[in-house]
C-alpha cells in the first residue's frame, strides 16, 4: 500500500511519511520474529530500523524538503493512469504461475511472498518512473524494505550474515545517499534529476 502511495503521491512530505510507515511495518515483522526466537541480533536490527529508517531518515527528508521548499515532488515519466496500469501489470506478474517456485519457498506464506515480490517490482518501477532524486532514494530504500520483507516471509531472517547485510545497508547507504542528495541540491539547486545533463560528451 505504501509503495502504491509513493507512486501516486505528489508531495514529498507525504512520501517521506509513507516511507517511515513502511519501515515501521518492516520493523514490526522483525519484532515479531524476535519474540518468537529471542535472537538478540534481530533485536539490534529492530532498533536500527526504528532509529534510522522510521525516525531519522524521514525526519532528514522532511527537514530537507522544508529547508529547500521542495513541497511538491517533480514529475514522473509515465502519467497517473499509465502508472496505475503498470502497477497492475507488475502485481499480476508477481502472482503469475511462472514465479510459483519463488513464492512457494514457504507454502504457508505464499500470498505474503507474492506480495513482497510485487513490492520489489513496484519499487523498481518507482525508481525508474520518478525524476526526483528524493523519490529515487525512497525507491531504492523501498526496494530494500521489499527485499527484507521477502527475507522475513521466506524465513531467512535468522541468518546472521543476512542480518549483518541488512544492518550495513541501513546504516551506511542512507548516510551516503543523503550526503549525495545535499550535494545535488548544492550544485544543481534542485532535486530534479532531469536537470542533470552534463554528461553528454
Amino acid at each position, binding site marked *: 500500500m505504501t509503495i502504491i502511495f509513493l507512486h501516486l503521491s505528489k508531495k514529498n512530505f507525504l512520501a517521506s511519511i509513507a516511507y517511515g510507515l513502511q519501515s515501521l511495518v518492516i520493523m514490526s515483522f522483525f519484532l515479531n520474529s524476535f519474540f518468537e526466537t529471542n535472537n538478540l541480533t534481530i533485536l539490534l536490527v529492530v532498533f536500527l530500523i526504528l532509529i534510522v529508517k522510521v525516525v531519522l531518515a524521514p525526519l532528514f527528508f522532511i527537514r530537507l524538503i522544508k529547508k529547500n521548499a521542495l513541497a511538491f515532488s517533480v514529475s514522473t515519466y509515465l502519467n497517473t493512469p499509465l502508472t496505475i496500469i503498470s502497477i497492475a501489470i507488475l502485481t499480476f506478474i508477481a502472482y503469475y504461475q511462472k514465479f510459483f517456485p519463488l513464492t512457494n519457498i514457504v507454502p504457508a506464506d505464499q500470498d505474503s511472498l507474492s506480495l513482497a515480490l510485487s513490492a520489489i517490482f513496484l519499487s523498481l518501477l518507482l525508481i525508474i518512473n520518478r525524476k526526483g532524486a528524493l523519490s529515487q532514494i525512497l525507491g531504492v530504500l523501498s*526496494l530494500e524494505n521489499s527485499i527484507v520483507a521477502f527475507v522475513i516471509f521466506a524465513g531467512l531472517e535468522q541468518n546472521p550474515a543476512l542480518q549483518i547485510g541488512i544492518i550495513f545497508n541501513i546504516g551506511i*547507504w542512507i548516510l551516503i545517499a543523503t550526503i549525495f542528495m545535499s550535494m545535488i541540491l548544492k550544485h544543481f539547486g534542485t532535486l530534479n534529476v532531469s536537470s542533470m545533463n552534463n554528461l553528454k560528451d
Partner: protein
Amino acid sequence: MEIIFIITTLIIVAILNVLIKRRLVIEFFSIIASSVALFESIVVAVKVSTAGVYAPFVFFSVDSLGAIVMLIIACVGFITTIYSVQYLRQETVKGIIGFTRVRQYFVLLNIFLAAMFLAVTASNPVFAWISIEATTLSTAFLISFYNKPSAIEAAWKYLIINSIGLLLGFFGTLLYFTSMSSLGENGFVSWQSLLANIVHLDPLIAKIAFIFVLIGYGTKVGLAPMHTWLPDAHSKAPAPISALLSGVLLNVALVVVLRFKIITDTVVGQHFTQNLLIAFGLFSIAIAAFIVLTQENYKRLLAYSSIENMGIMALGFGFGGLGVLGAVLHMIYHALIKSALFLSAGTIFLKYSTTKIAKIKGGLTILPITSIFFLVGFLAITGTPPFGIFLSKMLIVSEGMKIYPIISALALFLMVILFIGFFKHVSNMFFSQKPKDTEAGESSAWLIIPPLILLVIMIILSFYIPPFLSRLINNAVSYY
C-alpha cells in the same frame, strides 16, 4: 593471517590519514600500506598455488581465481598509489585541488582497496556482497572528487544504478540461501557449504536466482545493458581511480558472478549460465564496438573498451573449455594494460587539461614517452600480436568456433570494428600536428614509471608465466 594483515593495514592507514596533517606522511603511509598488501598478496598466492584453497580463518577463503584477482588488486593498487602521489601533486600545483582533497583521496583509496580485498577473500556470499557495496560507497566519493556538477552527476548515477544492481544481487543471493534454510542451517553460510547443499534447491529457483545475481553483480561488472554508469564514472574520476575501477573492480564483481555460476551449474547444468554469459558478453562487445566509433572523449573511449573486454571475458567463461583459460588470461592482461592506459590518460590530461579527443594534437611530439605507452597499450588491448591479449582472444574465439561459430564470428567482427574505431581516435591524438601553444616534454618521471612497470609486467607475462601463477591459472580453469 596475511589477509587480515592486508585489510587491517589498509584500514588503519585510512584512519591515520584522517588524522595526519602532513601530506608527505599521508603519501608515505599509503605507499607502505599498498606495498604491504602487494607483498602479502604474493605470499597468499604462492600458498594457494600449492594448497589449492587457503582458508586461514573462518571468514576468509581464497581459491585460485580469488588469488589471481588478489594479485591484480595488489599489483595495480600499489602502482596506482605511487602514481597518485605525483598525479595529485601536479593537480595541486595547477590549483585544481588542495590538501583536504588529497587527504580525502588517500583515505578513500585505502578503504576502496580494503573493500576489494575483502570481496574476493570473504568466505561468505553476504560478506562478499557487503564488501562490493562498500566499494560502491567509497568510490562514489572518489568519482565526485572534483566536486563539479558533471562529476556529481556521474557519481549519483553510479550510486543509484549500482545500488539497485547490488540490491537485486542481494535478492538473488538470498534465494540461494533458501536451500540452506530447508536444512535448518542458521549459521554463517560459506561458498563451500552453499555449494554442498545446493542440490536441495529447486532448479527453477536456482535459475531465477542466477538471473538476479547476473543482473545485479553484472551491473558492477559493466555488462551491457547495465553498463550505463561505467563510461560516466570512469571519465569523471581521477585517472588513477579510473585505472582501479576499470582494471580491478570489474574483475572483483565478475569473480562473484562466477562463484554463483558454479553453484547454479550444480543444480541446472552448465548450459543455462553459459548461454546467459554468452548473450550478455556478446551484447556488451556490440554496444562498445559501435559507441567507440563515435566517441569524443578518450577516457570514455577506454571505459567502453573495458565494457568490450568484460564482454569478451563473459564470452570466454560462457564458451567453457579453452575459453575459460582465455578468459582468465584476458582478465590478467586486461587489468594490467587498461590500468596503464588510464594512467597514461591521466598524464595526457595533466598536459592538455582536457579529455576531448579533438583537442589532443601532436601527442607524440608533446608527450613522447607517454604517447608510446598509450600506443603500446592500444595495440595490446585490441589484441594485436605478440601481446598476451592476442592469445587470450584467440583461445576464446577458437573455443567458440567449435560450438557457436556464428556468435564467435560475430564477436570477431565486432572486435575488428572496435579496433578500427580505437585506431582512428589514437591516430588523431598522436600522429597529428603539434599545437604551437603547448610546451613539449614529460612533466615527471614518476608519471612515467608506474605505467611502464604495468606494461613491462604485461609484456613479460605475454611470453612467460611464472610457475606459481601458471598453477593458479590451471587450477582456476579446471574449477570454473
